Structures are given as C-alpha cells and as structure tokens.
C-alpha cells in the first residue's frame, strides 16, 4: 500500500462534517500555518516541489512567488474547479466527499498569498456540489476558521462558490476569470499574466482543486518530507481518475513510482480489463494528451518500464511519449475503434472552441467533419493527410492552449494508428457495431 495524503481519511464515516474532519487532524495544518509567516509558508511549498495538478504541472511555489503585491490593491486566490477535460473527475471526488480539506487548503494558501477573498469556480453541471462546499464554509466560519479575525490572527477571509454554466474553455485560467467577471469565457492574451492582472485586473493566483487540497498535508508533514515522496521532479502523490474499459474505474491516489502496468492490472487499483480483453491503447492524462498504443504505454521506446509520473509519461516527447496531464486515465480495449473515439474528441473540442481564433474555430470543425466522414465509411487516404495538415496548422497558432489540445489527440491517433484509419477507409463495415452518430443539437 502506498502512502496516502489526500485520500487518507476519505473512508472515515462523516468526514464531510467539520467535527469528524477536525477529530482526524483537520485544520491543525492551518493552526500551524498561522504560527508561520507567509514567506515561511511559501518556502515550504517551494521545497515540497508541488506541481499544479490542473494539467500543466507548473511548480506551485514558483507561481505563488510571481504574485504582484502593489500597496492597497486586493489580491485573489481563485480555485479552478471547472474540471471538464474528458476523463477527469478527481476534483469532484475531493469536493463531494472531503470538502473541508479544500477549504483548509484555501485558508492556508490565501493566508500565504495575502488574499482576503477567494472564489471557487466550479463547473455548472456539478450542481449539487456548491451546497456541500457552502455548508462546509458555514461550518468553518462557525468554528472561527473563516470570516473576520480568524483565530485572533487579525486575518480575514471569505470564500465564495461560483458556478459556471457549461463551457470547457472556462477551465483555461484567463477564460475562467472572464467568466467570473460575468462575461463570455474568451481567453485573454497573455501577458499580462493573472499574477499581475487577474480578476478585476488585480493580482490573482489560479490553482486547481487538487493542488490546493495538497497544501494542508505539505504544511503538516513539511515540504521536505513531501518532496521525499515520489521520484525526481514528481513529488508527493497524485490523484488519477481511471475510466474507459476497466474492471474498477474510479479515483485513486497513486505514488509516482507506480508502473502503468500495475495501475491497470493490479487488484489494488483498476483490476484489469473486463472480460479479459487485451489492452489496445490509452490516453493517460485527460483527452488532450497523446494516445499511446499498449506497447508504448507499458514500456518507453527504450524498453524501460513506464511509470505514473510526469517525466516517465513524457519520455519520448510527443513522438513515442505522452503526458500525465490532469490524470484522466482513459483505457481502450481491443474492440474499440480509434477512429470513432478520436471523432468524439474532435467533436468535443469543436463544440468547446470559444471561436476567437480562426485556426481553432475553423480547424476543429474541419477535423470533426473529416473524422466523421471516415467513420461513416466515406473517407479517402487523402483525408488522412488533410487531417494531419489541419492539426499541424492549429498547433501553436492560437490564443489559448485549447487549440493545441484539440490537435494533439488527432495527431497522435494518426501517428500511432494510421493503418487503422486506412483499414477503416477500406472496410466501412466497422460501422456495423457502431451507430447513433448525431449532429449537434442546438437548444
């Protein structure tokens, strides 16, 4: 059994409530933090090596150190709970079952950053979760851990939960801030970065739910102890949301030393693939990262065992490697059709493009339509080259990374499964086991 930090108490009965959470050591990290200076807390976070769990893996301590601190201007901590990357459902788990851990994390982080107001921006569809969070906030307030003059420190903090309304792009931090200001979720041009001009043009830190939920553990055990867990620049633990064709899909807290093979097949984790089917492919870090065929997934191109950490996943770059991303681990068994799967992802990105940049707005639509054409048995070999051409023209040419995220899955699918695309063109009968291709309903 690997050591757990985030899910250590997840099965404790009543852990949702302040009382039980407190009994199991909850808010003691906050009490410890209040005896430290903000700079000391920042130092612990830096030493911990914690990297953002939202997808990009940017070092959290470094991000916090960029926060501008002009006199008399408020600063904000905004928690990114938009969680809309296909394959990803870990933040939901944390918020639904152990909300106080996030609240305590926000408290320590805001204290460190000097923010007196923090917003949790949660995807609108998680419509039963705001109540859970708001209840936890009320409880924390009643016990003096939020509100004015928290525990006689003279520090004030209010936390508000804000619902989105269905837009993947609002997970991108600047689109999120626009949305929080009551506008369309159009990503902003950077620079300026949120650390300088964020919410209401004030200095802002945007962090993922899991990132912030890891802060109490870091303060409790110290940054140095946290950094000892894991390997290299992958420190601490990571939540993985496993889905697709697995016997035991769900949310797991893993050690960065774990091999992908063990994660998929061992009883402690996903318990293998249903009906003893063979592993065909996997997208291990949320739909935006490259898909890998089984062979390259379990072992790197150099023949080394691939592990569930940032470096090992990325071994081979985008040619023979992939990325840990958000930890959305999608498994495809031998019966699954790569073309159809890629088509659903292309449709997703096309639907979610905000439309500001031509390559993304038009390119995602082209990719979807061509993939649909191939999927429906009307494709030609030229279409494969055209797809490749379109994705290469989106990548790197847009305001926000949604464009790149749309192009990478298509590029990797063609790179590793070109023969399946060709087979599909010659054998439209693959369709016989698929049906129900639907155009977008605009209501």
């Amino acid at each position, binding site marked *: 059994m690997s050591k757990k930090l985030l899910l250590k108490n997840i099965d404790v009965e009543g852990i949702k409530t302040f009382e039980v959470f407190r009994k199991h050591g909850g808010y003691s990290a906050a009490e410890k933090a209040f005896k430290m200076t903000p700079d000391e807390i920042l130092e612990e976070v830096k030493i911990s090596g914690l990297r953002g769990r939202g997808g990009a893996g940017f070092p959290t301590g470094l991000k916090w150190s960029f926060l501008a601190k002009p006199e008399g201007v*408020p600063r904000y901590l905004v928690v990114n709970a938009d*969680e*809309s990357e*296909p*394959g*990803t*459902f870990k933040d*939901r788990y944390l918020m639904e079952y152990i909300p106080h851990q996030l609240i305590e994390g926000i408290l320590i982080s805001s204290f460190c950053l000097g923010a007196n107001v923090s917003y949790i921006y949660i*995807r*609108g*569809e*998680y*419509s*039963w979760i705001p109540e859970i969070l708001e209840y936890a906030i009320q409880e924390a307030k009643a016990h003096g851990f939020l509100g004015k003059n928290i525990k006689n420190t003279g520090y004030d903090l*209010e936390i*508000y939960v*804000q*619902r*989105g*309304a*269905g*837009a*993947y792009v609002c997970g991108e931090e600047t689109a999120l801030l626009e*949305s*929080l*200001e*009551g*506008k*369309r*979720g159009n990503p902003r041009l950077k620079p300026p970065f949120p650390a300088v001009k964020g919410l*209401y043009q004030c200095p802002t830190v945007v962090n993922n739910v899991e990132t912030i939920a890891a802060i109490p553990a870091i303060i409790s055990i110290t940054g140095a102890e946290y950094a000892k867990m894991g390997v290299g620049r992958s420190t601490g633990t990571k939540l993985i*949301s*496993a*889905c*697709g*064709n697995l016997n035991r*899909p769900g*949310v797991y807290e893993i050690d960065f030393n774990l091999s992908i093979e063990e994660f998929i097949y061992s009883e402690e984790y996903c318990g293998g693939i249903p009906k003893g089917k063979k592993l065909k492919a996997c997208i291990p870090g949320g*739909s935006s990262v490259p898909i890998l065929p089984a062979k390259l997934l379990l072992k790197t191109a150099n023949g080394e065992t691939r592990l569930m950490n940032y470096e090992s996943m990325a071994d081979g770059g985008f040619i023979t490697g992939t990325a840990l991303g958000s930890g*959305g681990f*999608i498994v495809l068994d031998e019966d*699954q059709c790569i073309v*159809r*799967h890629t088509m*659903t*992802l292309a*449709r*997703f990105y096309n*639907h*979610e493009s*905000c439309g500001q940049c031509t390559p993304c707005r038009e390119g995602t639509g082209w990719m979807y339509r061509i993939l649909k054409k191939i999927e429906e048995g009307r494709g030609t070999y030229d279409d494969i080259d055209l797809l490749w051409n379109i994705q290469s023209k989106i990548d790197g040419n847009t305001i926000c990374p949604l464009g790149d995220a749309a192009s990478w899955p298509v590029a990797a699918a063609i790179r590793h499964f070109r023969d399946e695309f060709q087979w599909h063109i010659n054998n439209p009968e693959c369709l016989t086991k*698929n*049906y*129900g291709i*639907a*155009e*977008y*309903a*605009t*209501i």
Partner: protein
Amino acid sequence: MTKNGVSPNKEIVFSTESLHKVHEIIARYPEGKQKSALIPILHMAQKEFGGWLDVPVMDYVASLLNISPIEVYEVATFYTMFNMQPVGKYVLEVCRTGPCMLNGSDQIIEHIKEKLQIKEGETTKDGMFTLKPAECLGACGYAPMMQIGKFYHEHLTKEKVDEIIDLCRAGNIAID
C-alpha cells in the same frame, strides 16, 4: 411556454426569496463588480421562469444588475447550460464523449430516441422530455451516464433508463 415570448400578461419578477438571494450574491463581489453575479442569476432565472431564457427574462436580469441587455444575451448564448428555447420538463442530457462512448453511450442515446420517438435536441409532444446530448460531464468512471436537472444518473443500462423514464412520468424523480 410559447416560442416567441412569455405570455404577455405574466409579469417577470423574482419571488421575494429569490430577490433576497440576488442581493446576497451581488454582495460577494467588490463594489461596482455586480456583473460577476450574471451567471449565478441566469441560473436562478432559468429555474424560476420555465426552464429557458426568453428575451424578456434576460432583459429583466439586465435591469436587476444595471447592465445592458446585450451583455446578458452575449453570455446566455455562450454557455451550453442556458436554454435559448423551451425545453421539456425533464431534460435528459446524455454524455457521449470518448470515455462514455467506450461504455456504450451511443446505445443509450439510441434507446432513448426509439423509446421517446424524438431526435437529439427534440422535445416529446407532451412536453415531458427533451433529449440533449452532452459532452463529458465529469462522471467518466461511472459511464454511461446522464444528467436530469440537478442530478447525475450513472452506470446506465437500457433497463435503468426505462426505470428512470417511468419515475419521471410518475413525477417521482428529484430534479432540484
């Protein structure tokens, strides 16, 4: 529930309780930043005024927040959760993105289409059900799934869908 407007004799005003909530929400943001309340208030308006956002409803929200109507239209049309046309009492939002597709969401959608005799985006004649295909709702590990109102229904099978539809018809399902 007409397509071109709420019936003219029905006045659009929030209940006292909702108005109270509106003020509470506005107070979450700094002075002058009340526009931040737009999305939360549109959610409330959609719920209170018939499940979709008609123009007079959006104009009312604009007046509450002291912003221009166009600022509301821009936002309402951007986000998929806001319905720009009338919908049925129960909107079946079935996820069909990759991970759900791998677990048979296509068959679930097909089953609902056949059972209710509607296509994607359509509403049954009795105004009970709308089928609205959705993209990843963050329940991929519990696929296939659909959202009805506030709640998720996971690990769907055809039989489970039949049961849910019966529960809806009998008015025995929580939607908020």
